[in-house]
């Protein structure tokens, strides 16, 4: 019983970590209709930048948590303005392919800057202890991740439901033409949302770095996982992403516990089953 309880804590922590990483991807897809395959690259860059900040320049994790997303937000801005904005007319598929190409490029840039060694970020001392629950020690940092995940979920929910921006965003989710008809600058909305997506990816990169590590090609592994979560939850649905993250966290944690040999298999199996039962994901709207 204790073991199951302990695994549940692991599952929730892991699930919310996935949520932190994926929610930016969901947001961008929901509003821009762009499946941003460079999302993982933003995540990776942020982790590397955070490493530079915590190891080379200052020792502050908190500073890294603030600065790295800013830098990546800037990269996202440049990408949106130079690459995506002039090409919205090419259609959604072309945009996916563009970000796919970007992911290839970013993959090679990172090792040039940071080398190809495995790196890691130290957890700030406040969060480096451990807590005992279910007769099992847990790192405090895992609970911090749970907290951050919940906070982001609430924040996104508030923004979406309580603010004017949220209204635009919700309108964008359902009808892009209407938004522009209302006289709202859709370009500005798109750029902002893409930056927010990048910032969220970057935030995920810093938060995840102490757990998942920093190493070459890390972004593809994370990207695939994020895509799985995105699709299970339903493209574009933040609530769906939250549910899917937790579901994937639970399935992956318990399959590692019960049947470690097939755990890799199970996540993709879960995705296939859900798509067959609910072709638009758990909470997704129909997207063509």
């Amino acid at each position, binding site marked *: 019983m204790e073991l199951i309880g302990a695994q549940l804590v692991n599952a929730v922590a892991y699930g919310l970590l996935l949520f932190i990483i994926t929610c930016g991807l969901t947001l961008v897809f929901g509003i821009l209709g762009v*499946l941003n395959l460079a999302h993982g690259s933003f995540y990776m860059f942020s982790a590397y930048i955070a490493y530079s900040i915590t190891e080379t320049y200052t020792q502050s994790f908190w500073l890294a948590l603030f600065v790295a997303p800013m830098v990546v937000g800037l990269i996202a801005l440049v990408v949106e303005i130079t690459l995506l904005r002039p090409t919205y007319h090419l259609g959604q598929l072309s945009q*996916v392919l563009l970000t796919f*190409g970007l992911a290839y490029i970013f993959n090679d840039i990172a090792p040039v800057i940071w080398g190809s060694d495995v790196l890691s970020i130290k957890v700030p001392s406040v969060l480096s202890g451990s807590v005992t629950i279910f007769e099992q020690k847990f790192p405090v940092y895992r609970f911090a991740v749970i907290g951050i995940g919940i906070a982001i979920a609430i924040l996104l929910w508030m923004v979406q439901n309580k603010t004017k921006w949220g209204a635009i965003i919700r309108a964008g989710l359902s009808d892009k033409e209407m938004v522009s008809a209302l006289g709202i600058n859709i370009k500005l909305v798109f750029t902002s949302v893409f930056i927010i997506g990048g910032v969220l990816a970057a935030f995920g990169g810093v938060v995840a770095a102490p757990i998942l590590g920093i190493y070459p090609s890390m972004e593809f592994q994370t990207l695939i996982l994020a895509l799985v979560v995105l699709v299970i939850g339903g493209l574009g649905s933040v609530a769906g992403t939250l549910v899917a993250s937790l579901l994937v966290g639970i399935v992956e944690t318990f399959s590692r516990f019960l049947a470690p040999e097939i755990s890799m298999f199970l996540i993709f*199996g879960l995705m296939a089953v859900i798509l*067959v039962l609910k072709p638009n994901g758990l909470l997704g709207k129909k997207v063509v």
Partner: protein
Amino acid sequence: MKTIVFKLVTVFVLLGLAPLVLSLFHLNLLSEILILAIFALSLNILVGFTGLVSLGHAAFFGIGAYTAGLVSLNLSNNLLVSMGASIIVSIITAAIIGAFCMRVSGFYFLMLTLAFSQMIYSFIYQSTNITGGSNGLSGIPNAVLSGFEFSNAVYVFYIVLLVFLATYAILGIIVKSPFGQVLIGIRENELRVKATGYNTSVYKYVAFVLAGAFGGLSGSLYTYFNGFIAPSDVYWTMSGNVLIMVLIGGSGTMLGPVLGAALFVILETVVSSYTDSWMLIVGSVFIIFVIFFPKGIVGIGQSLMRLAKKRKLKYDAKRKSKAA
């Protein structure tokens, strides 16, 4: 029909001379281009002609390759047996995966194909006892056909060339056939095709299985070519690479994927001698094509030809007016 046969024979004779002209290294490069070209052509049925963008096509390549390898190792290294087995297993797999994937479209199709291919990848990666796992499947004997052993690169090249031409001819006919025209219709406007009375799901399904079968075929050739298979051939980056080949070459054309495969392999061979940042180069080239040449190399060729024609017309007109 006669002209097709004539064309095929011409190309066969021309390319058949390659071993006399090319060095062994370049011949191997050509073999690899042709194998990947078959692979790209098979994906093109889906991406280019039916409008279904798959990011999991490496699954079939891998299944074909591993089936050919395992059959050669354990049952028989007869070329027709192992190649036949590859195609059959690929068809069965495609039939199963297709049954799931046909229920979704667009991004979901892309993701579901990715999911299935990753499942197959993890199965291959973890079944160390059967597939050799991360070490790959090695020590695969040379293929044999009625006593003749395909023991060196030249012989393998001729199998590859033969299969390539056959594939090119068959797919070339299929896409021009009434069936192929329905696929093109689905790519352009599925709703309209349905309203016309076609059960588009069946057509898409058949296209999916067809693509899987030829994907498996190309995989089996890769096994004869290398005598070795690694799980990286089933990984999603392989699917990504072949998608890039199709799109750079020109999707929805027959020649495009072939040129795409050629450019990809040549570029990789040339570039890697100068820099380790191969992915940076291919990513940049890909982006340039997506933005500026969405119709790929074939598209560029067509525009150039149109331009030349216009020039010629102008030139002729000028000459005429002068003469007058």
